[in-house]
């Protein structure tokens, strides 16, 4: 019984590290991947009659480390963004995004299990090196919070927007242009739209101007928010790639050291 619990703990720890290494993915991309790998582990364990701890460790080793999987995700993201390449037919095929994979197989350890929700790994198991780690850590929640608060935070008596602006200007990820755009288009986010919506229109002939004003107040914050989200995603993608390249360079350097007998 203790053995089973130890093995469950091994799997939970693996999934927790995997969740952490995939934290930059959107939830609708991360959760299906986590679910598939979680199911894979559950199925592989089910095939073992009386698994030992080493069997489970071997099974996780066959899967690859969370860092290897996240590096592969970055490579595939880059391929997807590069568009149809290599042996694609010349006639454009419709792209179809399937969002059918949110369901979970009951009984397995999965991302919805709070015990394996993404959380920081112990200091010794985090990403190994490079500025990519700094970049990856820096584009976590504060940036997303800033963008969301700039859009809708104004509805919280205006305070939320101010907090979003502070987060935006403190960010080391967004450029000066991003910060200026995020702050000035429009101050208050959607709050001005709410004000325009409920402002009484009494002068004749102002209804068209009112509609235009309302549309502008709605659209501009939405466009700004979309722009900032895209900027954030581009930086994430780049940092994922840098991380992959850094790991590959570190691996090559280590191999070279070993060959020279310095390892």
């Amino acid at each position, binding site marked *: 019984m203790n053995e089973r619990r130890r093995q469950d703990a091994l799997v939970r720890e693996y999934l927790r590290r995997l969740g952490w290494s995939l934290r930059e993915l959107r939830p609708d991309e991360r959760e299906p991947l986590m679910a598939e790998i979680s*199911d894979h582990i559950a199925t592989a364990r089910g095939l073992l009659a009386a698994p030992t701890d080493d069997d489970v460790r071997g099974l996780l080793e066959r899967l690859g480390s969370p860092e290897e*999987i996240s590096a592969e995700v970055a490579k*595939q993201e880059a*391929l997807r963004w590069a568009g149809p390449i*290599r*042996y694609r037919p010349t006639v454009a095929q*419709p792209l*179809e995004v399937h969002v059918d*994979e949110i369901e979970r197989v009951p009984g397995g350890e999965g991302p919805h299990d709070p015990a394996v929700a993404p959380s920081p790994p112990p200091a010794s198991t985090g990403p190994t090196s490079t500025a990519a780690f700094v970049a990856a850590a820096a584009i976590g929640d504060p940036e997303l919070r800033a963008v969301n608060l700039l859009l809708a935070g104004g509805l919280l008596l205006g305070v939320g927007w101010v907090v979003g602006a502070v987060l935006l200007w403190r960010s080391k990820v967004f450029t000066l242009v991003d910060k200026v755009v995020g702050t000035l288009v429009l101050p208050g986010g959607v709050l001005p739209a709410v004000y325009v919506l409920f402002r009484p229109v009494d002068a004749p002939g102002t209804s068209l101007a009112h509609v235009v004003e309302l549309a502008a107040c709605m659209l501009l914050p939405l466009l700004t928010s979309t722009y900032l989200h895209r900027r954030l995603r581009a930086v994430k993608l780049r940092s994922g790639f840098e991380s992959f390249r850094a790991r590959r360079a570190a691996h090559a350097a280590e191999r*070279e050291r070993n060959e020279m007998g310095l390892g």
Partner: protein
Amino acid sequence: MTGMENRPAELVGRMRHDVIEYCALGLLSGGPWGAFDLVRALAGEVGVSPREGTVYPVLARMRQEGLVTTAWREAEPGRPCRFYEVTPAGRAVLESFVGEWLSIRARIDAFVGTAEA
């Protein structure tokens, strides 16, 4: 030691990695596969990927590009399993790849002296 002797292994690793999606499409062209069996077939020493877990991001991208679709079915009674199936777009990609593959294989065979007499 110059590191040159590791080149074949690196080359094979890169080539195997780059053809995973086409191997997956090839397997799926014969009919749907359960995710676990598909990944086990593609990974490991006899497969084209050294690690099972790294196949899943490839499959996810193929799904997003519309080359494959997935559906939940019961692999065994009471055990739901995700099945992968190739789409018409995936078949077209595979056909295109097969043509290129035959061509490049013949050219390389001629260069390195492995062409059959």
